[in-house]
């Protein structure tokens, strides 16, 4: 009996200590981790599409509830005016989800730029979505709500060579982003005001 009690006690103490330690550590590192995630995962993409912005889009951000989820929006100031927001959406690619950061000019509702964030595409094939300006450039200037399609599906977008699947994913991500944008536009405009000035 004493042994069993000892077993239970030891296990309980160990688990409690472990849980306590981890919870404490989690609390003290949470903020830094979130920042790191933004910087390393979203950061490069945001910097790329909001190149030349007067502010740091990673710190200038806000979140809007979209149904169940929270969406982060990153603000780009151009010509002294906070008129561009960048946000992320996903499409299904060759190796799972392809995350795409889409920047939209709220004044014109046109795409300012797109860049891939997270993906698991093959180097030399789909992964060139990160670097292929000829591909991403096709989206610049089109209305965000235009739901682009690759040529194989009857649209206008020329797919990445040998990577139709990845290209479709990009188109799908932009379409979804367009829908979300339409839904949330009033809220976005409201929030943007706080950054102008």
């Amino acid at each position: 009996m004493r042994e069993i009690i000892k077993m239970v006690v030891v296990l309980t103490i160990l688990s409690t200590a472990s849980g306590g330690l981890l919870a404490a550590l989690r609390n003290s590192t949470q903020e830094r981790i979130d920042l790191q995630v933004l910087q390393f995962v979203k950061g490069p993409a945001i910097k790329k599409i909001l190149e030349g912005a007067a502010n740091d889009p990673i710190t200038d951000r806000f979140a809007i509830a979209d149904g169940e989820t929270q969406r982060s929006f990153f603000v780009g100031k151009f010509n002294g005016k906070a008129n561009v927001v960048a946000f992320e959406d996903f499409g299904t690619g060759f190796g799972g989800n392809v995350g795409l950061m889409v920047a939209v000019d709220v004044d014109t509702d046109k795409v300012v730029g797109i860049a891939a964030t997270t993906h698991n595409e093959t180097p030399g094939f789909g992964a060139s979505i990160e670097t292929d300006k000829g591909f991403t450039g096709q989206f610049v200037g089109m209305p965000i709500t235009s739901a682009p399609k690759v040529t194989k599906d009857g649209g206008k977008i020329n797919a990445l060579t040998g990577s139709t699947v990845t290209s479709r994913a990009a188109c799908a991500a932009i379409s979804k982003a367009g829908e979300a944008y339409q839904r949330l536009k009033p809220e976005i405009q409201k929030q943007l005001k706080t950054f102008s000035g």
Partner: protein
Amino acid sequence: MGDLLVLMISCILINNILLAQYLGNCPFLGTSKKMETAVGMAMAVIFVLVMAGVITWVLNVYCLKKLGIEYLQTISFILVIAGLVQFVEMFLKKSIPALYAGLGIFLPLITTNCAVMGVCLINIKEEYSFIEALVSSFAYAAGFGLALILFTGIRERVLLARVPKPLQDTSIGLVTAGLISLAFYAFKGMV
């Protein structure tokens, strides 16, 4: 349905857990000297992996996420898997002794097998739905079994060849595994 089939083929052939994801190598090298052992291990892994994949998925979605303590994933998963294997072992021993005799010796090995833990983590990382998690767990395990059995077929012959002394055993085993992994490049791009 088609998507699940694609997921399945991709998990078995293209993203094979052993040959492309580098998970589960210790039992791969340890149980591949004899065909009977390999088949036993393959069965045991399929059995445990499907259960572990499903249980950890449920645990993650309905417990850890709800409570916002996803950082306890690692510790809770390993405890669940260890407990599960113990439980399965006891259950089999009592209720299905025949199956236990076949799989029993492999079960403890599986606890410290990163394939099981790895697939559970992949299921979460890829944000699979329940049914996708089920299919991927099974398919990864089947991929493990397939690779293990093919490897064993070759290894049985390699064990009889005049392999130079320093290369014998694990060393040649690893090289052979690499060459099998190379052969699996055949399936790239097929789904």
